[in-house]
């Protein structure tokens, strides 16, 4: 039996995943639900329908894996989706999606493109690009290159003695769009006694894996692991990358920054040295909550900050629609989910919305901008560092 046939047959069609699925919540359509998609993949694999018939429902899937959290049968939907997309994309010829992935996976290229795009009119992704990729008008703003942020030097007396070294995954999007988050990661590591050691690194392949290009994704992941200095833990601050790296057999050394920092005592450090007067809410990045089961850790760190009032977000772990490059490939659905997320965020009355992934960060920040910047959108680690260094 093929791997896909085997994986899809584990679904008993109980339907417990339905209300967890963002696209089902929006459309109410069985074809846009996890159960429906699994059934279509199984049917295509068995030859009952054509693979092309399954394409649209699979394209509209965010890959958020909220269904895995809901599934009582422990069906590995993420794996099914990766394999099915890989099967669908395995056709030769011109693929705008592949070109986009290649730009995104090369920070120098991406930086150059963004610098150039300043001269384009409007603030959205160019219309022609959107048409080519999705057949729909664009919804996502072009990312802007950030201005440099400087941090005050450490107070040496605040720092614990060194315990060891750690490597930080710089991430393709993170490195270009939010380089200061990488700097903050290094600073927070130092605050719990770890020195960040640099290493030569390329794209980890997460975006490729989630968009139907498994083979190159796996090769990229292998290259990354090979370059990683022996024995060092790998600290990741992008949820999508962390989730993909943890799927590897060599995952034992990969940690999301929040879980590593909490384990090594950052909460105690925050409660003693930190302070921030703010109402904060937290959005669960899909690849943290559903992909890695990390929910408690970021909340525990935020709650440890004196002065912070945490307000839980309704539907906190429902996808915001960013979904890696989903908001470029499926602008219309991405927009619906963003508006849904925004309404929930506004209802909390929070002044800061924290999240642990650059994709969600940029997308929700766009909503904040469109709605008058009443809420500041930050990476969780940014909030922590702000509480410590002002």
């Amino acid at each position, binding site marked *: 039996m093929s791997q896909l046939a085997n994986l899809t047959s584990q679904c*008993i069609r*109980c339907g417990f995943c339905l209300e967890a699925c963002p696209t089902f919540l929006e459309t*109410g359509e*069985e074809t846009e639900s996890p159960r429906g998609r699994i059934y279509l993949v199984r049917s295509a694999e068995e030859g009952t329908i054509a693979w092309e*018939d399954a394409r649209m429902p699979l394209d509209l899937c965010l890959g958020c894996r909220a269904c895995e959290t809901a599934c009582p*049968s422990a069906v590995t939907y993420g794996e099914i989706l990766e394999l099915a997309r890989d099967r669908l994309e395995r056709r030769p010829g011109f693929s705008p999606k592949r070109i986009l992935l290649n730009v995104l996976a090369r920070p120098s290229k991406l930086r150059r493109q963004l610098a150039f795009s300043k001269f384009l009119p409007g603030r959205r992704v160019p219309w022609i690009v959107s048409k080519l990729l999705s057949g729909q008008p664009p919804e996502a703003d072009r990312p802007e290159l950030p201005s440099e942020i400087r941090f005050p030097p450490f107070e040496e007396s605040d720092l614990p003695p060194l315990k060891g070294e750690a490597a930080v995954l710089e991430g393709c999007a993170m490195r270009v769009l939010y380089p200061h988050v990488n700097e903050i990661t290094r600073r927070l590591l130092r605050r719990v006694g770890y020195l960040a050691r640099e290493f030569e690194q390329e794209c980890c392949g997460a975006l490729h894996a989630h968009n139907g290009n498994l083979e190159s994704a796996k090769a990229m992941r292998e290259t990354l692991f090979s370059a990683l200095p022996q024995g060092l833990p790998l600290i990741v601050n992008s949820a999508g990358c962390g989730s993909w790296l943890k799927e590897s057999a060599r995952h034992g050394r990969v940690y999301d920054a929040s879980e590593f920092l909490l384990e090594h005592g950052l909460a105690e450090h925050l409660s003693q040295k930190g302070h921030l007067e703010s109402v904060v809410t937290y959005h669960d990045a899909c690849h943290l909550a559903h992909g890695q089961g990390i929910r408690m850790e970021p909340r525990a760190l935020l709650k440890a900050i004196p002065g912070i009032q945490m307000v839980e977000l309704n539907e906190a772990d429902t996808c915001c629609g960013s979904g890696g490059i989903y908001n470029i490939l499926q602008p219309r659905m991405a927009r619906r989910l963003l508006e849904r997320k925004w309404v929930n965020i506004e209802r909390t009355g929070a002044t800061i919305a924290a999240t642990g992934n650059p994709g969600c960060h940029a997308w929700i920040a766009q909503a904040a901008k469109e709605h008058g910047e009443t809420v500041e959108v930050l990476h969780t680690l940014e909030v922590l560092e702000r509480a410590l260094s002002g």
Partner: protein
Amino acid sequence: MTDEAMVRELGRLLDPERVLGGAAAQRAYDCDAYTVDRSKPTAIVLPESTDEVAAIIRWCNENRIPFTGRGAGTGLSGGALPALGGVVISTKKLTKILEIDIENRCLKAQAGIANKRLSDAVREQGLHFAPDPSSQTVSTIGGNIAENAGGPHTLKYGVTAQHILGLTLVDPQGEILQFGGKIPGAPGFDFVSLIVGSEGTLGLVTEAWVRLTPLPNAVETALVSFPTVRDATQTVADIIAAGVIPAALELMDRGIMVALEAAFGLKYPDSAVALLLIECDGVGERACDRVRMEINQVGEICKANCAIDITIAQDEAERQKLWLARKKGVGAMGRLAPSIVTHDGVIPRSKLPEMLDFVYEVAAKHNVKVANLFHAGDGNLHPCFYFDDRDPNQVEAVVTAGEEIVRKCIELGGSISGEHGIGVEKADLMPFMFTPDDLRLQAMAKEIFSDGSLCNPCKVLPNQKSCVEHKRRWRGVAW
């Protein structure tokens, strides 16, 4: 009419984006959670109002096209199977709560909203919608009404029928009718009770007034393991005999424990062959003491029946963990085989040990695998057969074994269904339980609403026109 023409014409009645056709949609809607029988619809519509539902049903009548209502598609007897093709009318765009009346403890909601969202909406006011089928996070109130759904807490709180005050029904001709309302006990014939449990054969319910029940302020939950099924079932009988009415009294056998261990790593004592989940609850000032006394009394009864281990939840988190075993037990069986069929017979409680022995015997005879998890408190069995639905021989064996179990239930003075409905699964078994006169009376009740056979055909009543010859097409072989 061609498939394309049908989709096009329906697209004139409602937004074309809410009319689905084509191979993928037809496949996705060809069954619900009962997977033994499958049949494709031509088109699927997702109306957003009662008026749209009425327009669709009138159009189906004009064109003599069968139609079938569908909620979340979590039904276990094939109630949402479009048996003769035609149009599936999904309620999943009718998901609003229309009015909440806290003072009179009721609310009005559209049919497609998930059961649990009703309770979520009034939790802060200390209320909930009591019927809680295991699928409550997803199954719709409309589907619950159609199947008269139960759940673990029905032992104390009753099934869906006891919690529906009024309905808006679009009848099989497309007329919009109102029955009941927020004030209970209207004079005259009780049509609400007739419609609840009619499995979508009397029309499509689009809105309902439901009763809200105070949330218990005291809850005690215990999970108890036993060395034999007989010890567990004797405990059930003894608890009821002692005059205790637990809110829930659920039994799970070894097969379920194996599945739960595979799916979630939950561990149970090695010598445990049966688990009982027992929950006592109460409302009011002194409820805590009263409920604590009840659970202690239950504990004593368990001990007297050779219980191996008694775990009483100390807080809500532990309570949820104990409930995992029950709520996710069936889903966990997906780990063991690609498909399951869950039966739903009811027997007098006193016959539980005898019946379970019979279930194991039948399973062994037909060489099918079975696990049991069920509402022991009201004698509602749920033997779960797990099998590979791609193997016609296994499908056949499961169907045959199921029929033998259902016959035994009747023989022991029980019923063929407790809460899952008859659907297509058990329509042919109705004559085992009812005389031809009984069945004729039921058919006449149906005729009050419809003289045709377009509305959810082939369900509940056996030997309906043009269903018999289609049956072979639905079953296994045609996938």
